[in-house]
């Protein structure tokens, strides 16, 4: 949802980042587009099985000029929530941020992988 709010006199627009989600047998990968967000502007939060990703864009360098055309918001707060299946190993989630792209690697719990059970003679 696009929502405007005022934070310290700045207009911040809340937007939903675009994502790609891929799944293999052992992992889920999440790739989120957050142009303008640096490594320090990212926040990843896991509460129960609700994963929230957030990113705040860096302030623009000031120049003695006027905005002539606007196609994207300048001060953005990206936010999106996902409900994780209980097959994800929450403790093993890792994340990287590069060139405005947040990448999350969500490994699945190993115990859920098929395994053989040894039958012992009684």
């Amino acid at each position: 949802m696009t929502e405007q709010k005022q934070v310290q006199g700045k207009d911040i627009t809340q937007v939903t980042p675009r994502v790609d989600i891929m799944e293999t047998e052992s992992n889920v990968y999440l790739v989120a587009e957050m142009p303008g967000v640096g490594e320090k502007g990212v926040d990843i939060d896991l509460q129960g099985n609700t994963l929230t990703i957030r990113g705040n864009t860096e302030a623009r360098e000031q120049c003695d000029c006027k905005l002539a055309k606007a196609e994207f918001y300048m001060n953005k707060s990206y936010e999106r929530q996902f409900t994780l299946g209980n097959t994800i190993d929450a403790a093993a989630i890792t994340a990287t941020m590069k060139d405005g792209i947040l990448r999350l690697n969500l490994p699945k719990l190993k115990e859920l992988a098929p395994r053989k059970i040894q039958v012992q003679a009684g």
Partner: protein
Amino acid sequence: MWKASGTALFDPWRDLFGIENGINEFLSGLNYRRGDFPPANVWTGDDRIEFEFEVPGIPADKLEVTAKQDTLTVRGTREADPLPEGATFLRQERGEGTFARSFSLPFKVDADAVEAKYRNGILKVVLPKSKEIMPKKISVVGE
């Protein structure tokens, strides 16, 4: 079983809110046609014009910026992350493919002095006004 767990990852309401997003953007005064890529913000000053483009995830060497006297062109390729072995997409919203966008500039620019920087997925191009058209102060010499 994996499929069922996978679907829990996404929220069907998001698609619905996506529509609202589009409407809000339309009403908020941003004049952006969907499909124009990359979106640009343009700033003008007395001595320059500045462009900012949202091009997340595109390495600097995959971006080509050309400035002629009164035209700026940005070209590049958006590439999806390589799909891991045996992976399937649960959701694919990011775009890919080649793009090119040109802008007519309101004045002649000094093509040799154009600067392009890439940071956090934002490409910033600063084009100084051509010296020929910059106002010149002429000192008056008393006789």
